[in-house]
């Protein structure tokens, strides 16, 4: 945490970037070309002949093929080497420089929040595209659902070799102190590498974060307990429904459980999960219930009343979850 003086200095430092350029204009490494357009259209499933059918396009009002407008920012991208930029490599431009300042003060998360693009003129094969980016606004500190941070809005103008304006993109990111999913929120180097999909993360708030923290940091499953009447409760809530006490602590579950009910999820298949997937309502030995998965089991062998034992484990690159296995009798 920064003290008020430090915060003031930090904000002065970041707000000084407003109005500045990222650096010299970026010039596309390749001119707009039919091969790249064709590949993009294949991947996007865009069959518009104006982009790829030279014969058809010759008879169109444009007199030849044009590049899909939404490819505009692609022509100036720095390509594959971007994937290997490390967080503390010397900054390649003022944007990286600014992000590194944020990183230094703990605002390590980055998430794109808005992007709007206006298109003025079409790009066509042979055009050389340039882009010119500036920092437009940097907000005051904001509290958001994923953490506290600053919105940075940048404006990029695209032109061709004749200086003709092709488009204008307004891009807004939030640089924030991650409160939720540190691993998912870390800025990946350069932001271009795609990761394996992971399980959907729970929203975190006052009433459940402590529970997930125990899972993530201590590999423990806790059960909330009323300090006044000792009633156990799950899912956690801020007040005891029996005696209305706001005072609570927790006990650690033994993770000995019995299957109260279950289902075998087959469809739809969501990225980040493997199927068939067994979901189950587990009755814990302590008396509360926990919804989880039963793993290392043939779905056909699942029965209600099955004894299971749970542990907290890493289920994918970023997710830790309680998971249960049948107890061999």
């Amino acid at each position, binding site marked *: 945490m920064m003290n008020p003086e430090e915060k003031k200095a930090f904000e002065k430092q970041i707000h000084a970037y407003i109005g500045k350029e990222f650096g010299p204009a970026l010039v596309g490494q390749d001119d707009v070309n039919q091969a790249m357009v064709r590949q993009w259209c294949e991947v996007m499933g865009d069959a518009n002949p104006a982009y790829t059918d030279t014969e058809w396009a010759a008879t169109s009002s444009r007199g030849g093929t044009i590049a899909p407008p939404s490819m505009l920012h692609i022509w100036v991208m720095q390509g594959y080497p971007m994937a290997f930029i490390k967080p503390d490599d010397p900054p390649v431009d003022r944007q990286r420089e600014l992000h590194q300042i944020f990183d230094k003060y703990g605002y390590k998360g980055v998430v794109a929040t808005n992007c709007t693009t206006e298109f003025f003129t079409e790009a066509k094969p042979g055009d050389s595209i340039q882009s010119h980016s500036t920092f437009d606004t940097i907000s005051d500190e904001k509290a958001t659902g994923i953490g506290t941070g600053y919105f940075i809005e940048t404006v990029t103008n695209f032109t061709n070799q004749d200086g003709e304006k092709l488009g204008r993109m307004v891009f807004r990111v939030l640089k924030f102190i991650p409160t939720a999913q540190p691993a998912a929120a870390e800025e990946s180097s350069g932001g271009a590498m795609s990761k394996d999909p992971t399980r959907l993360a729970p*929203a975190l708030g006052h*009433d*459940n974060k402590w529970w997930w923290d125990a899972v993530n940091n201590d590999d423990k499953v806790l059960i909330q307990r009323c300090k006044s009447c000792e009633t156990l409760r799950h899912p956690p809530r801020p007040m005891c429904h029996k005696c209305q006490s706001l005072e609570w602590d927790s006990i650690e579950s033994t993770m000995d459980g019995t299957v109260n009910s279950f289902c*075998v999820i087959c469809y739809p298949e969501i990225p980040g999960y493997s199927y068939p997937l067994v979901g189950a*309502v587990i009755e814990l030995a302590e008396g509360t219930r926990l919804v989880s*998965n039963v793993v290392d089991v043939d779905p056909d062998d699942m029965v209600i009343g099955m004894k299971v034992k749970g542990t907290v484990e890493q289920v994918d690159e970023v997710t830790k979850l309680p998971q249960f296995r049948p107890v061999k009798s």
Partner: protein
Amino acid sequence: MLTSIKDECAIVGIGMTEISKNSGRSELQLAAECVSAAIKDAGLKPHDIDGLTGFTLDHVDEIEVARTVGIPELKMMSRMPHGGGAPMSLVQQAVMAVSTGMCKAVVGYRAMNGRSGARYSEGVADGPETTDAISWGWYMPYGLLTPACWVAMHTQRYMHEYGATDEALAEIAVAQRDFASRNPNALFYGRPITMDDYYNAPYIVEPLKLYDCCIETDGGAAFVITSAERAKDLPHTPAMVRSAAQGAAFDQEVMTSFYRDCITTLPEYDLVAKQCYEQSGLGPDDLDAAIIYDAFTPIVLFQLESFGFCKHGEGHEWVKGGTLGPDGRLPTNTHGGLLSEGYIHGINGLAEGVRLIRGTSVNQPKKNIENVLVTSGASMPTSAIIIGK
């Protein structure tokens, strides 16, 4: 009959938390604290409260308030729209409920971290920490992402406890496609299915197969209600509203009430049924047909049991042998239902209920239809009506 609300009701308790720039706790806790304080101030206990009214803008669901504070049953839930225009309308909701005898005591609430959380002045609400969002977090990481998963969990336990098999589900699935096959407005028009079709279809979430699940459609449905007096002068046989009830029950969650001792019944539907019968003076024997909310086949069984057509756990036997068919004891979802007419969130079912009263359903039963039950979603706070000639 009540003719005026004058002097019918009074505000008897008030409760507040401190006001700060950073409460340091959840909006749910703020709501629980002020609601609990108001109940105490009134000299009442949580179980004396049976209605909650709030803001559509509130991030705290009324059933979360009820579970947290320990209010066991709700007979009326309302959310009033339009932000700053809402507060006095909460009083109006409460007075309506209490003066008509629908509720004994109603609490109105609003809880917000309006400075430290999502601020109106920011103009952007980036994933507010609603109780709803927190609640889904107990299921999503484990892959329980769809209504089929949640309903399957209740169904598996139901089959286990009562010896039910998918035969009962097949009965419902096939009967409703049969109705739909004769309804030109149904997606399954002209497409009846056989028992073999049912059994050969793949699992979506075991034990639910493809034809246990409703379809997804676009469309709209609406209705008009006026006074009985005025209805006399209008062209159609009026469908008189005999009763209209809402309900949430102890430990209620939306679709995931897995923490109750028994997860094979719908206590909220028991509560709705009780009110429907009390208000109308009718019983299950007086109901001639039904529109039962059928997002999934098993929830039809649960509802039939709650409405007393048979005992809890016996629905799977009761439906067999054509009970819900055109000539059965209780022709049900004669339009094809959400399973096979279309999914307009139950308002299309209400329209069919009215057709049954008018005698204009494409599958109009031969017998006289005096009273029809129309229900809403199951496994969540819910509501139902009885309409009649």
